[in-house]
């Protein structure tokens, strides 16, 4: 009750009674209201896999009206209903971007890069969040790319076009490199999206091709980090197993785009899957394995901190996000 009265006196919005005026305010000295901070916390999260220290780092997220054809093989209304059921803003879809840093004790390894700073107000946050996590970009030894889509590779460059990780070796999947760097494939690009991807790959990577090592599936791309064939999304799309001691984590890259749609509905085809049927088969195989071994999964397009476990749920799957560990 005192709250209402006090507020009425301060704002003058309500009738001030004679009694209230007659009685001097007895509350503590008036203080100006504290302004809102208006800024999010740094978005990084640490956890361990065996002896390895991992840092999940957000590059941001994009919330956009769901594009026509975002899900190729179901009506737009159905895709929108799924997004809304997952608490996304009506008519819109949110796509987060989350690279991972692995400190193996011997090497500091970055898996995928996000976008360069300043790409948009809500993306290109990787460098700032990396710095907030206390990691110097110059200390990164290896940058491993899962595939050559812009949200995974563009952050190799600074906003000015320099090298964002000047001391790192860059590793790219050999089949993806071959696909995107082929002039013949580029000339056959079926639509503007694909043309844009071919042009972007070259813009980002062509003049540093000599710094890029091509890796094959089955190889260790860094100590304890093995490349796994997860093709379909792109011809060279790669997932990773990070193993230390008896612990193992799967880095799924883009086995699904946002899980709210494509993990719940593994047969849906996101617009970005180059071979949708192969991507679908990869998805089922990957999640059946992950569910059976109760593997921890890092997903580039999962909501930050982008970690969870997958369980089977009817014909689809369900992502169970990890419980944040407050004490590391």
């Amino acid at each position, binding site marked *: 009750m005192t*709250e209402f009265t006090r507020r009425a006196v301060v704002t003058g919005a309500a009738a001030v009674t004679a009694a209230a005026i007659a009685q001097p305010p007895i509350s503590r000295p008036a*203080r100006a209201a504290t302004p809102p901070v208006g*800024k*999010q*916390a740094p978005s990084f*999260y640490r956890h361990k896999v065996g002896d390895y220290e991992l840092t999940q780092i957000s590059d941001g997220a994009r919330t956009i009206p769901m594009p026509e054809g975002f899900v190729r093989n179901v009506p737009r209304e159905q895709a929108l209903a799924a997004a809304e059921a997952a608490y996304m803003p009506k008519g819109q879809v949110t796509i987060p971007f989350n690279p991972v840093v692995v*400190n193996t004790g011997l090497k500091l390894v970055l898996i995928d890069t996000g976008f360069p700073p300043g790409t948009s107000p809500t993306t290109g946050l990787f460098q700032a969040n990396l710095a907030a996590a206390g990691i110097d970009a110059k200390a990164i030894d290896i940058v491993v790319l899962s595939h050559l889509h812009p949200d995974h590779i563009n952050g190799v460059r600074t906003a000015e076009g320099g090298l964002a990780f000047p001391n790192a070796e860059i590793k790219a999947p050999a089949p993806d490199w071959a696909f995107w760097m082929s002039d013949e494939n580029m000339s056959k690009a079926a639509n503007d999206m694909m043309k844009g991807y071919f042009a972007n790959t070259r813009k980002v990577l062509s003049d540093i091709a000599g710094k890029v090592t091509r890796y094959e599936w089955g190889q260790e791309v860094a100590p304890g980090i093995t490349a796994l064939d997860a093709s379909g999304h792109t011809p060279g799309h790669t997932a990773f197993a990070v193993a230390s001691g008896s612990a193992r984590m799967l880095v799924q890259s883009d086995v699904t785009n946002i899980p709210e749609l494509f993990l719940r509905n593994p047969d849906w085809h996101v617009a970005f899957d180059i071979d949708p049927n192969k991507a679908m088969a990869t998805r089922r195989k990957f999640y059946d394995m992950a569910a059976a071994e109760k593997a921890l999964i890092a997903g580039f397009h999962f909501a930050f901190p982008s970690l969870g476990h997958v369980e089977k749920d009817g014909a689809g799957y369900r992502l169970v996000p990890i*419980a*944040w*560990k407050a004490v590391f």
Partner: protein
Amino acid sequence: MSKITRRAALAGVAGAGAASGLQPSASAQAAAPAAARQAAGFYRYKIGDYEITAINDGVRQDKLETSPYRNAKLEEVQAALEATFLPKNQMSIVFNQALVNTGSKLVLLDTGNGPGRGPTVGMLPANLAAAGVDPKTIDTIVISHFHGDHIGGLRTADGQLAFPNAEIKVPAREWAYWMDDGNMSRAPEGSNLANNHRNVRRIFAGLGDKVTKYEWGAEVGPGITAMDTNGHTPGHTSFVVASGPGKLIVQSDVTAHVALLFLRNPEWHAGGDMDGPQAVRTRRKLYDMVATDRILLAGYHLPFPAVGYIEKDGSSYRFVPAAWSPVL
């Protein structure tokens, strides 16, 4: 490939160094040291015009040796932990406060464990500092109920007021129950109940003029209404925070202890649930409402940042964390 060559070259240098009595350069091969520290536990989100900051007070990690729940067997608790992808032999009890900036008032809902309750709890002051919040700027503290993990943070280690300029608001029924000498005398000596009676008196000693008792239905801060959710304790209170079209329910301990387990097993009685059957009725009533109306909910003992949605799943419930937004 170049990496292997470089390593071979380094090894060669090292070999040569040893042979010539020189030490190899350690810095060339040393990886960046592990950070070994979690990110600060705060997260911001908006409810209408209000800025909410979820603040983490830490986690208590208890070894699971006997069932902590009155009507659940140890094996059932272990199975529930495993189904939730939590370690089977450990209970991690997390504590999260909500700070509400209404534009005119800075209101803190509950205060955490306070000092002296272990190295992994009592982190509210540190996380407030990380969030840039000065404890002196907090205008109002609203207490949901009188368990130690909610009121302990009112005092600093030397017994001073942790939030010196704040009015303290407490549920009238909670005050009446715990301050009653008859109730205290009936609590079995050495029991948690007796200890809690003593702790309540220690915390509130000498604070008479700073403490306001509120009734259910009252506004305890601008747009913040107290809601009867008794059962966990006689005066246990939840809050509705409303600003414009935005609405948040701060549930306090409608599910307590490891809250995720009580969502999946809503009939279980936590040790702290003073009236178990009433706590179950309250739980079902609140969750049926927020699930139907898709109202955002903050839970004191849910994993940080402890905000999300409740979905019905047969006769139990499922927590769907709100997607972390990397920008505010």
